[in-house]
């Protein structure tokens, strides 16, 4: 097969333009071309797990839609598993799994078990294989008690785990996840991440993960692809992203009393003060430990916490360069 060993997802100079009609007068409308995706190129090997990030409206969803074949590209070349997704959508859908954090592929009124039965028939999964896959997901995602509960009665985290299972019953080669941890609590997030890590390691499933939560990427992906305004901004390891974006972490310090802004700490600067609370920015690549010990030694420290840079910050800094 064409995709064995080589590039599993191959995107070259991919472009998508939409025509947006705007009302400019009482009856007049003008058509305007919007380039949602503007010449993106990247490749993904089989079994790779990559983060796909960018601010809202960057063109992530549009790209995913083209990768899954439900949107036609306006230009460029696109191959998934050696297949043109749009032309051979019905063939490709059997090889991909898609999970949307904000949408569900399950049937609202049916118990999870019934939804899975329909999925089995849709994808013609052999009974033995189906049961094996289901048992595995049920065990790893702890769905055992939930199989007979109608989807509408599930919590967001439970439903998300149910959706991930539904996307994997037919053994897809590639899994697209769009914001899979959005709105989930810490425990559910951890469970989903652990599951994805196992899936990728054991099955070699290629995973492309869209998220706003940088910690998803940090814990799961060695590689990250950043796009903004339809253009590729960065493609490489996460650590490199912080360097490129000169990512900064923030130390939030609570002092015993209101003090003038903390000064004289190497590598850190006070960016904000509010009563006894101060915000210190320091490079994401530096360790927080020496900073914390100096603070504790020299200031009346009550409490502190560290905030990781979020993706908007990092991208904003990439621009500022």
């Amino acid at each position, binding site marked *: 097969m064409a995709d064995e060993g080589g590039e599993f997802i191959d995107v070259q100079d991919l472009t998508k333009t939409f025509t947006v009609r705007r009302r400019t007068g009482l009856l007049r409308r003008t058509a305007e071309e919007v380039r*949602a995706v503007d010449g993106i190129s990247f490749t993904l090997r089989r079994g790779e797990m990559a983060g796909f990030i960018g601010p809202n409206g960057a063109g992530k969803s*549009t790209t995913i839609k083209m990768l899954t074949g439900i*949107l036609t590209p306006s230009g460029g070349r696109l191959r998934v598993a050696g297949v043109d997704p749009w032309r051979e959508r019905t063939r490709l859908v059997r090889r991909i799994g898609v999970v949307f954090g904000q949408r569900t592929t399950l049937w609202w009124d049916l118990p999870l078990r019934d939804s899975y039965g329909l999925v089995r028939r849709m994808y013609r999964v052999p009974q033995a294989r189906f049961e094996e896959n289901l048992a595995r997901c049920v065990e790893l995602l702890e769905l055992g008690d939930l199989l007979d509960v109608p989807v509408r009665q599930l919590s967001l985290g439970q439903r998300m785990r149910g959706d991930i299972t539904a996307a994997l019953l037919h053994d897809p080669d590639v899994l697209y996840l769009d914001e899979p941890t959005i709105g989930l609590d810490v425990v559910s997030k951890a469970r989903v991440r652990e599951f994805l890590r196992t899936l990728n390691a054991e099955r070699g499933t290629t995973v492309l993960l869209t998220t706003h939560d940088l910690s998803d990427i940090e814990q799961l992906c060695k590689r990250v692809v950043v796009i903004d305004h339809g253009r590729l901004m960065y493609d490489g390891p996460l650590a490199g992203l912080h360097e490129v974006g000169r990512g900064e972490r923030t130390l939030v310090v609570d002092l015993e009393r209101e003090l003038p802004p903390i000064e004289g700490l190497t590598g850190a600067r006070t960016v904000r003060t509010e009563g006894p609370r101060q915000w210190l920015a320091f490079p994401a690549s530096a360790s927080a430990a020496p900073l914390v010990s100096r603070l504790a030694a020299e200031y009346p420290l009550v409490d502190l916490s560290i905030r990781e840079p979020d993706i908007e910050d990092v991208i904003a800094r990439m621009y500022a360069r």
Partner: protein
Amino acid sequence: MHLLRLNFAVAVSGFRRYATYRVATAAGVFTNTVFGFILAYTFIALWHERPHLGGYDQSQALTFVWIGQAMLASVAVMGGGFQDEFSERIRNGDVAIDLYRPVDLQLWWLAADLGRAAFQLLGRGVVPLAVGALAFDLALPASPGSWLLFLLAVLLALVVSFALRYLVALCGFWLLDATGLNALSTLLSLFFSGMLLPLTVFPGAFGETARLLPWSATLQVPADVLLGAQPGGAAAGLAFQTGWALVLLAAGRALQTVATRKVVVQGG
């Protein structure tokens, strides 16, 4: 074979989904029965003044009322069923998820809606008809053959009703708000199915036209098949329904292709 099994499974799930709402079903049965009584007394008054109106005697007219009530929910004369769900999926974009599935959109929804209809025929049809038969003198046939033909006509009515509602729902791809169109389609369906008055009572060109429109295949024809009042016999009625079913399903398929292309090219 695979396709048959899949669609049967989809239909069964459609049946089950509606079967979970027991209170709603009971409320529906109650409404249909009350509505049936109101219409029945209206028809009695009408047929008392004008015996043999539309070619029915009074007991045939009353049978028409109760058959209508028994089929109302199942045939979705007032809209609804899969239509609400499908329209909502088009509006909020969830329909994109349906495109990820290796199944045919139209066949999928048809199977789901037939499952729902099967439940509503049993859950909301049998009791009102039984109540009507106990309270009034109905002209129900005794031969199993007539009932079999009637069931076939009901099945075709369900397909025609589905195909009509599928077209209406698909228009949602272009109309951002399909409320107006839905209201219009409900109104047309309510009147031209014969739900308010049998279409046979309307004289002249209007009556002729009304009896040729697809909505007449959803209630008027099945009722006439049961009453043995179908002009040209039951076979003519079934052929009329089959014709509309094929035409409307084909139209739905064509519109679906255009709608899918629109989503696929323009992103919805």
